């Protein structure tokens, strides 16, 4: 009888704090726990009693990597609760802001966190010693995203210009011009990135994922839409964002401060780039579609290691679409639409770079938040990541432990987990039970 324990003390090159513990006995995995020990920050509890205008700023602080995602999901949930909707040029401006965050976050992940795994480096900085031009290209790409966010939102992390109903001030064409200039170069970089990462040596793995992503009739959905799910073979099923609580439930596991999610009772679905691509690839911009085809991505990609290629394709899409919107940009005639608070419930979902982010708020008579519920992508993916790891490790338990640890870490990084955001997931009904 042999025992084996693989322990990765602190996961590196992921956002936030996590660890992995695997116990095996007689060649079989008995436990596998992706431990999220990011200290709990209790966002849903803190939001109670705050004004309806506050969640966008407060929830941005859940995650410094994708604050715009939090702001967008929060705004839309509150607007829905108040019966308001942001459309037209203001919605376009939101999209622009969001594309900026996508470019920034994806470039960070691709170049500084993920690519070093394929090229055999400990970090992007170490990689720069041998491939300075590549890392500089990545940084330039990242900067293009950041500058777009800063031009619209004021700063890349926790932008200040987002409000329920729209923006505090809309930027002029002139203010956006430098960002547009930089994006043109970035789009070329993004295309080069797709070609570059497509050439990596990928392990030959496929999982039979059940995908979940936002879908939108006219867009490769980022900002809004309805929820779609499926395996990438049959037509996706769907439900409205407002029906989320009927489909997605969460449960707490003792080993983690993040909660595990189930879709229609089933555990282990996947959200994020592979899911978006599988459900929405046809709506990518033509340039991004071409790049995907050239990179050898079929209509669906089930190899988690290839997520880096999908991310690169999404950068092309984001640059391309951002440039299209910038080209047609005219200052909206008012920076925001009024959103009068009223008692009620509102749901909002958008696609953070690492997957679907859902918010729900109930406002009370005084327009204050009575309940808040946030389901971040990494919490949804946690069970699926654990399943990936089981598949990966089960046949390889004979390998030395440090090798297993390395393999696991790489497999985890495929999903770009943002662990700081996993720490405050709540299904309000469950918590009361």
């Amino acid at each position, binding site marked *: 009888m042999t025992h084996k324990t693989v322990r990765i003390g602190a996961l590196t090159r992921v956002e936030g704090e996590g660890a992995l513990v695997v116990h095996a006995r007689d060649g079989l995995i008995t436990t596998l726990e992706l431990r999220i020990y990011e200290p*709990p920050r209790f966002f849903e509890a803190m939001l109670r009693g705050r004004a309806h205008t506050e969640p966008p*700023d407060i929830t941005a602080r*859940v995650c*410094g990597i994708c604050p715009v995602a939090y702001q967008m999901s929060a705004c839309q949930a509150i607007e829905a609760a108040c019966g308001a909707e942001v459309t037209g040029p203001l919605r376009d401006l939101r999209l622009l802001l969001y594309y900026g965050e996508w470019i920034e976050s994806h470039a960070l992940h691709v170049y500084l966190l993920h690519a070093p795994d394929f090229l055999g480096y*400990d970090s992007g900085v170490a990689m720069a010693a041998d491939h300075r031009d590549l890392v*500089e290209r990545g940084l330039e790409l*990242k900067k293009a995203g950041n500058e777009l966010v800063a031009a619209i939102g004021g700063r890349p992390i926790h932008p200040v210009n987002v409000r329920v109903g729209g923006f*505090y001030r809309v930027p002029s064409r002139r203010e956006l011009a430098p960002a547009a200039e930089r994006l043109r170069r970035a789009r070329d970089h993004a295309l080069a990135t797709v070609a570059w990462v497509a050439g990596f040596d990928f392990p030959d793995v496929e999982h039979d994922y059940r995908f979940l992503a936002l879908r939108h009739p006219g867009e490769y959905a980022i900002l809004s839409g309805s929820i779609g799910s499926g395996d990438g073979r049959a037509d996706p099923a769907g439900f409205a964002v407002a029906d989320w609580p009927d489909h997605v439930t969460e449960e*707490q596991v003792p080993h983690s401060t993040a909660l595990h999610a189930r879709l229609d009772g089933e555990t282990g679905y996947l959200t994020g780039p592979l899911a978006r691509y599988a459900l929405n690839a046809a709506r990518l911009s033509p340039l991004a579609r071409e790049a995907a085809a050239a990179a050898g991505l079929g209509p669906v990609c089930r190899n988690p290691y290839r997520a880096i290629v999908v991310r690169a394709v999404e950068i092309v899409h984001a640059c391309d679409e951002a440039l299209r919107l910038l080209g047609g940009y005219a200052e909206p005639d008012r920076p925001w639409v009024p959103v009068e608070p009223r008692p009620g419930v509102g749901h909002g979902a958008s696609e953070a770079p690492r997957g679907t982010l859902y918010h729900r708020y109930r406002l009370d008579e005084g327009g204050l938040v009575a309940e808040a519920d946030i389901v971040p992508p990494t919490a949804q993916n946690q069970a699926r990541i654990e399943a990936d790891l089981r598949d990966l490790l089960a046949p390889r338990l004979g390998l030395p432990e440090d090798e297993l640890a390395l393999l696991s870490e790489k497999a985890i990084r495929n999903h770009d987990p943002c662990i700081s955001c996993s720490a405050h997931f709540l299904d309000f009904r469950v918590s009361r039970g």
Partner: protein
Amino acid sequence: MPKLAVWKFASCDGCQLTFLDCEDELLAVAARVEIACFLEASSAPGPGPYDLSLVEGSITTPEDLERIRHVRRVSERLVTIGACATAGGIQALRDFADVKEFAAVVYARPDYIATLDRSTPIAAHVPVDFELRGCPPDRRQLLEVISAFLAGRRPEVPAHSVCVECKARGNACVMVAHGTPCLGPVTQAGCGALCPAFNRGCYGCFGPMESPNHASLNHWMRGLGMSTPELVRIYRTYHATTEPFRRAAEEAQRSGEEFGEEEE
């Protein structure tokens, strides 16, 4: 080469990301300092001791309490970055509530969660050489602090109000011109007066300035139509437990009673 380490406690990662966001300088910095420990960016943490540690996040768990002491031991200089590390951050709002109740709201089995009653800044536990404010900190200021520590000078991080930067940037005051309540006069500069530049009142994300006069500002903001609960909320965000903002919220409550205003 001096060794730099970056540590994370309870936080959103935004402060460390600010470092990675220095796209133009990152490689130059990496040429001047050995980035010896930075879990978010590297999977090969080098051994201590470190010449300069940047610490993000607040202390909220018993383990972190131990870990920060370790970090202090292995660091020649320790600089805290961001509102969580310097003031407890947004999660310090638990200080005004019952943390068990908080946990019960978020988790079905709060007994699985080990957490402290309060979210405290790093300086509450170990000596800190410099505190860089901001939620998140400003990129230029972060570089300034790193370069000041390398050059052995005082970081040029003025503690005066946001208004100074607001005017130097060429904004017109939003409070005067639009009647928009603004915490700029009691908030420390550093962001470049971002919010007023976007037609919005400052919401205090850089924490209290060197000599905040909240009583006078509260009085004026009431005149602009803010209610007591609104005043309390505006101070109770990212620096809620700093002494000046704590007092500012209390002052609002007290003066609200004097005004005979009903609580919401």
